[in-house]
């Protein structure tokens, strides 16, 4: 049986040569992402702004304008509607009702009754009510979690390797987080608690990817002490490219299945992760690896506890394609 090899064995892409172009594109996209978040803002879910979210399942796809008018007539504030993939499923968002305690559930009741009167067979599949106090705490915890994750993991790669690896990983992961947030700002997907979980997972995955690349760079730095950083990074990235592609594909396959079959509740979560996988893979090469050159990482660094150098007998047998670079 001939096995599938997505990346031919003699692949030797000059990644480093393209890095100035890539840098320009990266900066542009990052500015765009920040701009989108700053200008359009995120479509924050009730988890983070408080209020009510009522998911109604209709027998027939409702007319959205009419439904909006019906919801507004209840007098519980301006309603916002959001349709999922299935037009019969509509999420109704309402601002937090004044008067704390039981007020929120009364509004849910009123919406329920109003809908039942106007649409036969409608059911309230789920509803969330979050008070401003709780949403404030959830925002704080979410931001804290993301920062701790980035810091903790950057600290890990700093202790583990040279400081340049820590800094480049840190910058690359910030880039990934910004891109994900930009994606949410532009697509208007709801940004809620599970999105934070997605962002944390993206951070984990992205750093995983960078560790694999960084590991190989470290290994090659010991093997080819005289090689310039540029060719060395090209060599390393090309060497791990088959793995990078394979793993991205398996994860995307799994997430694709979740996106298509996993139901509407998980859709935003899954979409965020799929984007994050792509962005994270890109940033391993064009943000973190390229940055190592900018940060002046030199081969032949007196090692910390990196990979053990191979013995000489093995070293003589090396016959890398990349050595011709």
């Amino acid at each position: 049986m001939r096995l599938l090899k997505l990346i031919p064995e003699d692949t030797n892409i000059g990644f480093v040569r393209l890095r100035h172009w890539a840098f320009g594109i990266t900066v542009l996209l990052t500015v765009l992402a920040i701009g989108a978040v700053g200008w359009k803002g995120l479509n924050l879910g009730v988890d983070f702004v408080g209020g009510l979210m009522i998911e109604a399942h209709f027998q027939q796809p409702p007319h959205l304008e009419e439904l909006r008018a019906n919801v507004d007539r209840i007098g519980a504030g301006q309603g916002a509607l959001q349709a999922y993939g299935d037009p019969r499923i509509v999420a109704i968002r309402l601002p937090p009702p004044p008067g704390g305690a039981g007020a929120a559930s009364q509004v849910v009741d009123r919406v329920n009754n109003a809908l039942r009167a106007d649409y036969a067979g409608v059911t309230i599949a789920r509803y969330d009510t979050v008070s401003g106090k709780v949403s404030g705490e959830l925002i704080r915890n979410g931001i804290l979690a993301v920062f701790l994750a980035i810091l903790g993991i950057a600290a890990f790669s700093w202790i583990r390797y040279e400081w340049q690896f820590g800094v480049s990983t840190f910058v690359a992961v910030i880039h990934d987080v910004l891109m994900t947030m930009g994606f949410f700002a532009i697509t208007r997907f709801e940004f809620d608690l599970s999105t934070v979980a997605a962002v944390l997972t993206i951070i984990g995955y992205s750093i995983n990817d960078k560790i694999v690349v960084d590991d190989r760079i470290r290994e090659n730095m010991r093997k080819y002490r005289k090689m310039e950083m540029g060719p060395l990074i090209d060599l390393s990235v090309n060497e791990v490219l088959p793995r990078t592609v394979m793993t991205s594909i398996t994860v995307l396959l799994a997430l694709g299945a979740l996106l298509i079959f996993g139901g509407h509740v998980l859709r935003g979560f899954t979409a965020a992760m799929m984007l994050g996988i792509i962005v994270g893979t890109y940033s391993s090469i064009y943000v973190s690896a390229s940055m190592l050159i900018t940060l002046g990482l030199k081969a032949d660094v007196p090692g910390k506890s990196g990979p053990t150098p191979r013995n000489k007998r093995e070293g003589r047998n090396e016959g890398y394609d990349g050595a011709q670079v």
Partner: protein
Amino acid sequence: MLDFPRWKRIAIWALLGFGILLSIPSLLPGNIAHRLPAAIQKIHVNLGLDLAGGSHLLLEAQTGDVARQRVEMMEDNIRRQMRIATPRIDIGDVSTNGGQLSFTVRDPARIGDATTIAREQAQPSSFGGTREWDISANGATIAMRPTQAGLDAAVSSAMESARDVIDRRINALGTLEPTIIRQGANRILVQVPGLQNPEALKQLIGRTARLEFKLVDLTATPEQLQSGRAPIGSQILPLADGGRIAVLRRAMVSGDQISDARQAFDPQDGSPTVSITFNGDGARRFARVTQENVNKPFAIVLDNIVLSAPNIEEPILGGQAQIRGSFTVESANQLAISLRSGRLPVQLNVIEERTVGPDLGADSIRAGIIACIVATVAVLIFMFLSYGRFGLYADLAVIINLFVIVGVMALLNATLTLPGIAGFVLTVGTAVDANVLIDERIREERRRGRTVLMAVENGYKEASRTIFEANVVHTIAGLIMLVLGTGPIKGFAIVLLIGIATSVFTAVVFTRMLVVGWIRRNRPTEINI
């Protein structure tokens, strides 16, 4: 490399077999699982509310209530103690403003005695050294301020008994399996799976259920009622069906002296009522007060609202009373449950509620299972096409890993949520990363002209370090989610963390054993990878 002793092989198979075994009770359909012995039934994965359907309520106590009640109780105590002191100590200017109690002693000669009494009253009720009150005397004015430590202790004990009360009330609703836990200083988390009517639950929890029987103060003038300024020793309360009424502050009997409460029907007009039975002490007091006050009205007060103010036609000696009001059978029953389970020491507000209908939960499970199967099959095929025999070994590892994750979750009685299902699917995708790293490394080593044996050995050795580091990083992210995350995020993190641990084992140790076994049996000189 080929050195893989028999005991090690047996241990690996036994461990994985045990993991799979643990997963079985959770995977069996409910009707079969219920026939298993109880000890085995306990090993199962719980379904989160987003999958099982149900309500999640986060309640917060108004701790200000506790502080105010404490000061008011101290006021009552001080007034009584000063009155019964021999000779009696006259006090005035009693104030409970600003969270403290202050009063002036009329006779300067008695300031010393009054301070001693105040000190006695401020003694902690329980053993344990925390000072509960700060007492300061300024001339003839004595001020008593509750300390933060004392207040915290009071809030904590109020929350503890509130938890018990809620537990009793929810259990009275029937065969639910609620989770009721305290969170932080002043919160209680209530999770009730499979609930049909969360409204009833919230009404049951939200009611303080402080029941008091008080005599009506007939001396109050209409002007006093209007202005809300009660005569001394009385208070003005709203009536349930509108208007106001003045009642004596001191209760004849309170809800603490009830031994039972049931929903009943009025023998005269058949309307729903709540029938209550006093305990011994309550019955004696109720009998005495009604004997002394025949032909006077008394008020039945629930949570500071007067439900009714009937006339005492004759002494009530049987220790039984009927509460009438505009009840439905359901609301009368709810009140009866609330009264039976005791009053809440603090008012609780719902600050977060998440309710999922059972249909949506079932849909989510179905969709999650389909997604998981499709994802697994896609990844299995892709791995086989890419790495042939080595891919098959990785595939076997992925399948076993899925069962072992369920097994470990069952052992920990962990909760599976919808994001947890996403965690499963993601684990399928990431678990093979270890095998991809290993197999790509073997390819490289082969390309470099190493023998099969050397290539495989180097492949595993070199890749293991990278795999280890990558998983440390994943673990850090997972732990942060577990610690800082709430509800759904926690569910995701649990699956992720368990998946990391088990997948490293299956993807590295287990596949290595399979590869070594194959090489040992066949001694291949060429491998297709």
